[in-house]
């Protein structure tokens, strides 16, 4: 093995047999140079492998008559690059340079990195005569947006001037394809109840193939409920009551057939210690299915588009020995258009529940992401089994203007749409907004701030 170091460039020459040493070296490269070179493999010239030689069209690009000495990339840590890409890149070494193959590889690399990097190809003279080095130059694209507000997996600290603090601390530990996550949570933002407790998660990210993943969640929460909920429950005996604790065990399998699509299926076993009329345990055992689609497209004219859609289904049945019987549907749609520092976003959400679902499944609007300017306990203290919500936003750099509209109601009852307007500052790791409810009187602004980490 021979390691060459020249300025910021590093190269490994092949023929290595010691895999462990190779792994250590890869970590060293990651830590030091952001640059990794696949060298030309000795004895594997284009003539050496029958059937592998590419058709030379040196009439179009004159450099296609030269042999690729190495493939290099700059501007990214090696650990971020997909193994399959490495494999494909390595196949070009020792072959005649093929501009189309290099362009395809650049596109694959850009796609694999979620469109977050601009990839440019630079071909340089090689060390040997009639050889060239192919350099993939990556540049991080800075976008002025944060992820979808409905994404529940983002650890977050949120302050809502009407609802107080919510926070989640999660520590993931990654061992090859296994990810163990330990977390503590005290959250009143997402659901009607305040959850305080622990989260444990195990994820295996390669069940035979990278496209299949196994995930197991275990959550144990202690609940507390706002006084408005307790008061409203007195008038609504049809809504299941409050509970003191909730445990959830949810194994799920997810399939990623393409980079844009995720299909998940699993079960969720939830046990609730109901408080009234007597202390007892009730089960909400449900089958779950989710479809998520997310695609980023960057056009040549500099416009960047993100399209997302999701559908989630939870159905609790007697077949699974559940005390609660219900079906919950949830749909989201997102579109973001961005160019330079300008961003326009449209986000929609709809939900429907049939049957008798416990409080944690009911929809509510009026938190840090929906109907901003409103307090969810004023909008509908018990939430509803129907919900529709939309957000339109415009951002210039970190400054944001938004308009939220939506309604939450129960089947057979009238729905009243509510509107909220606001502005604020948003960055990748923090946001701060001032939102106003659109109504005739008692317009009290709501201050929301949050930190993502």
């Amino acid at each position, binding site marked *: 093995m021979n390691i060459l170091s020249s300025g910021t460039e590093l190269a490994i020459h092949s023929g290595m047999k010691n895999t462990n040493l190779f792994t250590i070296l890869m970590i060293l490269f990651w830590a030091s140079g952001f640059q990794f070179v696949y060298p030309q493999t000795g004895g594997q010239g284009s003539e050496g492998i029958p059937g592998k030689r590419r058709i030379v069209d040196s*009439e*179009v*690009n*004159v*450099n296609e008559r*030269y042999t690729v000495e190495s493939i290099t990339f700059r501007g990214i840590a090696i650990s971020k690059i997909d193994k399959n890409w490495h494999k494909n890149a390595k196949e070009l070494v020792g072959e005649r*340079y093929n*501009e*189309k193959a290099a*362009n*395809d590889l650049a*596109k694959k690399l850009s796609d694999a990195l979620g469109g977050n990097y601009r990839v*440019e*190809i*630079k*071909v*340089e*003279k090689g060390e040997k*005569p*009639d050889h*060239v080095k192919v350099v993939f130059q990556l540049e991080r694209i800075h976008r002025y947006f944060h992820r979808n507000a409905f994404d529940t997996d983002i650890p977050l600290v949120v302050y809502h001037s009407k609802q107080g603090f919510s926070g989640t601390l999660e520590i993931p530990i990654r061992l090859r394809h296994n990810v163990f996550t330990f977390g503590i949570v005290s959250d009143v933002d997402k659901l009607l109840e305040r959850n305080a407790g622990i989260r444990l998660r195990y994820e295996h990210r390669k069940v035979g193939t990278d496209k299949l993943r196994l995930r197991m969640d275990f959550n144990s929460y202690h609940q507390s409920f706002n006084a408005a909920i307790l008061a409203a429950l007195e008038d609504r005996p049809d809504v299941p009551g409050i509970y003191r604790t909730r445990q959830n065990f949810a194994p799920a399998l997810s399939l990623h057939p393409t980079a844009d699509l995720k299909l998940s299926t699993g079960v969720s076993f939830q046990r609730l210690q109901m408080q009234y009329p007597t202390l007892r345990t009730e089960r909400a055992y449900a089958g779950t299915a989710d479809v998520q689609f997310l*695609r980023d*497209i960057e*056009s*040549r*004219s500099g*416009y960047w*588009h993100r*399209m997302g859609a999701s559908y989630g289904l939870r159905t609790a049945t007697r077949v699974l020995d559940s005390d609660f019987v219900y079906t919950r549907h949830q749909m989201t749609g997102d579109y973001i258009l961005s160019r330079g520092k300008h961003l326009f976003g449209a986000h929609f959400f709809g939900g429907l529940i049939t049957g008798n679902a416990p409080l944690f499944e009911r929809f509510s609007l009026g938190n840090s992401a929906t109907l901003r300017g409103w307090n969810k306990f004023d909008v509908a203290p018990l939430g509803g089994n129907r919900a529709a919500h939309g957000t339109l936003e415009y951002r210039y750099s970190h400054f944001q203007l938004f308009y939220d509209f939506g309604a939450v109601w129960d089947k057979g009852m009238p729905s009243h749409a509510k509107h909220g307007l606001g502005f604020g500052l948003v960055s990748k790791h923090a946001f701060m907004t001032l939102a106003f409810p659109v109504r005739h009187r008692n317009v009290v602004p709501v201050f929301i701030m949050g930190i993502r980490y």
Partner: protein
Amino acid sequence: MECCRYRILLIVVFGMLGWQALAQSGSLVVEHRGDHLLVTTPQKHFIEGKALEKLHNGSTVPFVLSLKVIEENSPAPTLVLQERFLISFDLWEEKFSVVHAEPGGRTASRLALNMAEAWCLESMPIPLQTVSERQFFMVRLECSIDESSKESGAKGSSSLTLARLIDIFSRKRNTELPKWEVASGFLHLEDLKKISKAQ
């Protein structure tokens, strides 16, 4: 005081004339050769800037050259010639290679920058019969980089995907693409023939 003002005025006038002369020298030169006209740009390069940078990075750059013959008092060009040339830069020999992108198109290699440009323009002769002998006319050369066709070619697919649709709708119009252009002054065919004979 008044003398000083005149001096400033003279400097400005001569400066403007000098600038105009400089601009003229960089304009398109039209020559009569046999039964056609040929153009050259002796003082200006259309292989420049980002295109040149891409070439030095080993990429093929597709140039689209358009020659327009516009007669005096005529709003529309009487002749439009448009050709596509694929230019690449040999990293080892540091010379340019050009392919005329048409069925059975010619190729040339080991060319210096000036020669590569001249080769492209020589591949676009203007037939004499398309130019009026009575009227003055001018010739305009436009050059742009055909990125769209290069990318679609690279992807090798003409199918209508979501990404492609979005790209089509958000693409800048051709007129907005970076263009390089240069024009001759108004010319008369007889004068060009006389110059040609004198040479």
